[in-house]
């Protein structure tokens, strides 16, 4: 199966209150050496045929990410990830 992975992250300058809340919870687990947590979204797209990165990029730019506040990266899923 031809799978494309799109990772969407808030831009570095955009505050991520969810990530901050998680970071603030870590000391309760005894974790004290984490300075920052940021939360994004992983989207998996399966094409019928060959993975089409250009099409995936278009989908990401128009719908999956909001370029005003988010960056995205598009890649074909590696064999290691599938296994």
């Amino acid at each position, binding site marked *: 199966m031809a799978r494309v992975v799109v990772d969407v992250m*808030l831009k570095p300058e955009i505050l991520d209150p969810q990530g901050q*809340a998680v970071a603030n919870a870590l000391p309760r687990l005894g974790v004290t050496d984490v300075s920052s947590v940021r939360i994004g979204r992983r989207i998996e797209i399966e094409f019928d045929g060959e993975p089409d990165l250009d099409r995936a990029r278009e989908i990401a730019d128009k719908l999956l990410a909001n370029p005003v*506040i988010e960056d995205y990266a598009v890649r074909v899923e590696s064999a290691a990830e599938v296994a």
Partner: protein
Amino acid sequence: MRIGVVTFPGSLDDGDAARAARIAGAEAVRLWHGDPDLHGVDAVVLPGGFSYGDYLRCGAIARFAPVMESIIDAARGGLPVLGICNGFQVLCEAHLLPGALTRNQHLHFRNRDQWLKVEATNTAWTNGFTPGQEILIPVKNGEGCFVADPATLDKLEAEGRVIARYVRGNPNGSQRDIAGITNEAGNVVGIMPHPEHAVEALTGPSLDGLGFFTSVLRALAGAAAGGQLAGGQQ
């Protein structure tokens, strides 16, 4: 005058928006997300709620609804459009307004009566207010934190396109306390708090919200009379 109110799957405040339009003296016309026909309305309200379950991002999927394609075209042609709460999010996702609405900084859903200071009164939806007027209308959102890059914020301020700011407490962390903005032409307005919930003494904290709906009727009447449209620089 006919004010259209869109219902998306997951809209919550379409009924109240239609009611507010009627109380202001307009005929309320219900528009369906799957129908691109605007049925000849003179203005459109995108109501609050959780269109398409707020999946992906608030307003991201609604922006591609058939009715939105028509509204985006019409808005670029001058049709007055008011986006309230989720409707504001839809307008930003549709790039009719700059910036974006993100998760409230404190992560809590905020539901309270909120004081706003009206600033720009040269828009289709705010011409009935006076600059600096303080109004009280309900705010209820989880993702109402307005963000934009500093250049965009500076441009909005320089062009007088902030229509209202939060006063006596910012409920969501919005940059520069921005509660609502307008486009360059003044026909498209987005606001996070809910004017449609402040139109009757029985149910609202004030009648201040009615001003948005009477403003657009005044703008439309001015346009129909061939005069200077009260909303905007067209």
